């Protein structure tokens, strides 16, 4: 049956309309979970608030389990799902840039827009920084191109459209069970940590 748009059950022209609707719902729920506060988000790094970990781990586990069940019942053709290609060095460097920006600015790109949307000044400043980053990346693209496309010095970086379970040749179902157990264990232990740490008012 699914995916709905690649199989043309929903026409391609509805793509942007659906994206806007999902975007509004996403922003609304993120704001409701307190993700418009940079201090709440960086609480994960300093160890006084683990909401970010709980929300994202729950989202990942729920959708992964749901996708596997949908695929099993034949509601969704998992071979048609888009898988992001892996460029090794680019992923590591990009992850570092993202992580440093995350912990120093207190936002990730999406939440900075939520912060700006409800009028937080740090969110607006972060959004401007985001745009500047895009500008500098575009201007220096000719230097970074090899890393971006896995050519030249970075040849062999491109690992294709692989997933972790394909790379290590394990069953996705077993991997997801392990992932779920790790997630629930993480919820439990972060709860213990949060109780021991001196509460922070923000």
């Amino acid at each position: 049956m699914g995916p709905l748009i690649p199989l043309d059950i929903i026409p391609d022209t509805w793509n942007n309309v659906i994206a806007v609707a999902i975007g509004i719902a996403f922003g609304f729920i993120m704001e409701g979970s307190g993700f418009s506060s940079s201090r709440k988000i960086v609480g994960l790094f300093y160890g006084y608030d683990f909401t970010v970990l709980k929300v994202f781990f729950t989202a990942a586990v729920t959708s992964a389990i749901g996708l596997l069940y949908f695929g099993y019942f034949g509601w969704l053709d998992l071979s048609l799902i888009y898988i992001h290609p892996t460029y090794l060095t680019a992923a590591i460097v990009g992850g570092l840039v993202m992580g440093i920006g995350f912990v120093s600015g207190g936002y990730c790109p999406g939440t900075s827009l939520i912060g700006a949307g409800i009028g937080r000044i740090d969110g607006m400043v972060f959004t401007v920084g985001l745009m500047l980053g895009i500008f500098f990346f575009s201007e220096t693209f000719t230097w970074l191109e090899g890393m971006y496309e896995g050519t030249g010095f970075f040849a062999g970086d491109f690992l294709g459209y692989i997933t972790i379970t394909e790379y290590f040749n394990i069953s996705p179902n077993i991997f997801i069970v392990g992932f779920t157990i790790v997630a629930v264990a993480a919820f439990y232990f972060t709860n213990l940590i949060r109780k021991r740490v001196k509460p922070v008012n923000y």
Partner: protein
Amino acid sequence: MSKTYFLLGALLILVSLGLVILPSSENEDKVPPEKLLTELMSQSRFLPPDMVAARLIDEDPSILLIDVRPVEEYSSYSLPGALNIPLADLLKNDWQPYLNQNSMDVVFFSNGDLQADQAWVLSTRLGFKNLYVMEGGLNLWFDQIMQPEKPPASAASEAFDLYSFRKGAAQYFGGGAPEQVSNKQSGENIPIIRREKKTVAAGGC
């Protein structure tokens, strides 16, 4: 930790464990019936014997002939280079590397095209690619390639080209004598009229 969180955590683990307990899915790696029917209705899987013959003569490396008849029939006669996979053994693992690949065109054939078509349906159902059936099987092969019928004199020149190709193919595959090509040209048989020498009367009165 509150009771609700404990219950939700336990539920998450239970649901994920369900993924492991599930029996292996039946529609895995198989072609759904609707798609199979569409492919079955399309006649594009049939390759005429002429096309198979042309590719064999050209020594096309991308063609893989598979004889689905029983071993005895295969050993008495088969097409050159054909591999014997009797229909009954089609699903054996030994043959998977030949059938489940992307680089070659697999052509099934049998005496008619019924058994070959059955092999085609089974293999298509398993999701294998580039599968064909030789139209009419070996019977049509014999009728068309090994013992081609000479087109009537009034036929189009294409029919004669096809006929000469088939004659050549028959010779290539070891059968049929080359056609006796007569080089007679009109005008050759014109009788030569010899003039008799005029004898000059000798002597006189």
